[in-house]
């Protein structure tokens, strides 16, 4: 940043973003576009909300796969495998002999530890298996059936989402919104270098957000194994439950919007390096900013609705 960027007498000139913003075609169009985006996300998030609120109370459970028929399983018991311990083969053998489960299914249970769930047991069987696993040096405890109408936050047996990670990621996106508005404010005062710097910061923060989301998707889709209450296949993919369908659709479309925003910001950033914008002509920066903030607002709501509630 050089002092040549700064306008000669900033204090005497009313800053453009404080003046009553005149309506320009670009601004009318971008707000209309945002209105259409509001309606688009209403379709997705509204569907999520009514699915979430109207889901029957036995849709998800700690012991059975989502959407399993639980009416006759009220007395079902299971065992939660907290740690496999030294004798993995022994543990697998004990589970297989107690439940008659096949090799692949047992392997999934072991992989999901510390939240591996063995189901299909009655009270006696659960007690015996817990004792047998304890003898083998594994950590295990018996669990009774607990149902809910939706995966509960902070419940690793039904909900695979990491709230800690995503809270940090939320704040990263909020920070990128702040740097974006600082970039707009800088160019409104004619400080071109400062504007480019803040645009770059926004770009980096937005890219970080996307990177974390890609990491999260990778973990969910194939990186980790989850217990049966989350997915019968061990991986959290769109088809395993209505929650998974909603999660991937809503966050996926938001992610696509962020990606589009990052591309737009990259173009704007290059434009700012080439000196395309000035205190009189900064429409592209402002419109990209409005879009970026909108994506941020959607995420704020989405984070609360999908992750926390």
């Amino acid at each position, binding site marked *: 940043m050089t002092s040549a960027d700064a306008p000669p007498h900033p204090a005497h000139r009313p800053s453009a973003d404080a003046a009553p913003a005149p309506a320009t075609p670009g601004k009318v*169009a971008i707000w209309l576009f945002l209105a259409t985006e509001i309606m688009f996300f209403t*379709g997705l998030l509204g*569907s999520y909300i009514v699915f979430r609120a109207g889901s029957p109370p036995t849709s998800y459970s700690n012991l059975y796969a989502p959407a399993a028929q639980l009416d006759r399983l009220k007395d079902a018991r299971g065992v939660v495998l907290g740690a496999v311990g030294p004798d993995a083969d022994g543990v697998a053998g004990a589970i297989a002999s107690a439940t008659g489960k096949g090799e692949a299914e047992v392997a999934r249970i072991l992989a999901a530890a510390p939240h591996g769930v063995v189901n299909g047991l009655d009270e006696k069987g659960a007690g015996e298996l817990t004792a047998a696993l304890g003898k083998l040096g594994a950590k295990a405890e018996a669990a009774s059936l607990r149902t809910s109408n939706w995966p509960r936050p902070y419940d690793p047996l039904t909900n695979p989402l990491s709230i800690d990670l995503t809270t940090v990621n939320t704040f990263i996106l909020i920070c990128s919104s702040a740097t974006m508005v600082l970039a707009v404010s800088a160019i409104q005062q004619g400080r071109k270098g400062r504007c480019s710097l803040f645009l770059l910061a926004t770009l980096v923060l937005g890219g970080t957000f996307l990177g974390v989301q890609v990491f999260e998707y990778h973990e969910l889709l194939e990186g980790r194994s989850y217990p049966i209450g989350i997915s019968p296949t061990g991986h959290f993919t769109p*088809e395993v439950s209505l929650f998974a*369908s909603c999660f991937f659709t809503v966050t996926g479309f938001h992610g696509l919007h962020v990606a589009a925003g990052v591309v737009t910001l990259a173009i704007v950033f290059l434009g700012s390096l080439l000196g395309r914008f000035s205190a009189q002509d900064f429409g592209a920066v402002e419109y990209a900013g409005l879009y970026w903030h909108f994506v941020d607002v959607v995420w704020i709501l989405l984070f609360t609705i999908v992750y926390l509630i």
Partner: protein
Amino acid sequence: MSDAHVHPRPRNPLTRYVFSTDHKVIAVQFLFSGLIFFAVGGLLAMIIRWQLAWPWRPVPILSKWLWSAPALGGQMPPEFYNKLFTMHATIMIFFVIIPILTGAFGNFLIPLMIGARDMAFPKLNMFSYWIMWPGFAFLLASFFVEGGPSEAGWTGYPPLSTDPHAAPGSLNGQTYWLLALLCAGISSLTGSINYITTVVMLRAPGMKMFRMPMTVWSLFITALLQAFALPVLTSALVMQLLDRTAGTNFFSPVGASVGNGPAVTGGGAPLLFQHLFWFYSHPAVYVMILPGMGIASDVISTFSRKPLFGYKPMVVALAAIAGLGFIVWGHHMFQSGMNPALGATFMVSTMMIALPSAIKVFNWIGTMWGGRIQYTSAMLNAMAFVSMFIIGGLSGIFMAATPVDIHIHDTYFIVGHIHYVLFGGSTFAIFAGVYYWFPKIFGRTMNEGLGKVHFLFTFIFMTGTFLFMHIVGWHGHMRRIPDPTVYEFLRAPGVVWMNQFMTICAFALGLAQVPFVLNFFYSLVAGPKAEANPWKANSLEWTTASPPPHYNFEDLPRVFHAPYEYSVPGGEEDYLPQTSPLPPNITLDPVMA
């Protein structure tokens, strides 16, 4: 006004006629592709009618290459019938009427009528036309994929549409159908943002909102409807697409399995798609009728040589219809198992739409009342629009009443209703618009005699085709069945006779378009050169040359009054262009005009 922004017309034919950013060229592109698809959709309708009149009889000529199934002896496979009505409706609604009304008329008229040089975003405008082409491609390609095109109806209800095992057309045809609709939707969305911005920002000096012609008002409100409702359909189509391709569970109930297919996890609700679909598709029927109302208002006022009766109430009625249109979608779902409390709400809100609709009808009649009516082809079509809209509107009230709807739901009564609104309403409005603005668009005049022949036969055979649908529908004739004669009560001679009569009228209706096509193309090439203002009309597009120069106006016009000052007392002529000041002794009624 500085004309520094006026560039010369591009010389390169590619940027001049194909990838043009000129709103007039884009309008003509929309018009031509719409009319071509009109022929395709019409042909599909003919095959539908053939099957209904003479079930399972091989279709002359076409059956050989439409379905190559010698085992059936040339008769139509039943699922092909489903594909026919699905694609007929899809093409007519999403690729004919909406693109012609908003794409062609909207593009051509909005800048010219408000005195702008082009749309606010010419490149976006070009994009909104060319994004239709992937849509066209998906639509046409779906005829050639395994299983053929979609057969889930134009409404695409799950589970028939989402489960690939439900029907041959749900294999890949449905995916292509969804992609085609998404492309058309993006076109409409970008177009509507462009139209709204243009109307709000680029009006000529003096062109206040309440000096805009009704056509611009209607296109403006139509664009608002699309901007606010269409994204919801987009989200529903996206969810259906993901249900089909990514295995999501939005519209499948728990453990659903269709047609011996594997059970899905499910947990979603088929009814949700209906809600989201109709949240757009009820406003969509207004997208298809409001521009027609605007066109009819302008044509009727011009050829009655009288001010439009109640200009401001007409605008308010348009806005009321549009506003109410957002809270009535459930009237399509009375029979869906929807919560009965919602049914009553939607019934009441739907019936309220009769009020602004009646205001419009009374005002059109009031405009004609006592006028010196000139029965041009455009005027005849506009009058047909009004009368057909009355019939279609009244039969709509039947469906709005839940108890009556239970009797006539999914019968030919509703098929008759929709065709009275979409053919009797929108299509007559399109014809009125084409006859009225053809001289302005192409700079040549259409033949009035051929136009009247076209109108007369279209009107007669349109009535013959669609009127009896109400009667057979009331008699219990279901829609979407390939063979009514399997039912005892539909084998009654009267029903069979009416089905055959409707089919013959439908063929005649198709033939009645021949004079239009001849007239259109002959006039395009060899019609007499049109003057700037052949109809002696007031609005701004008639103040510039026919066809308008690149960038529309030599100098931006200055507007002094609304466009309906016909037969002003003391005036020299019976019309007063918007660019001429009012005579000093005239005061306007502040409420009505």
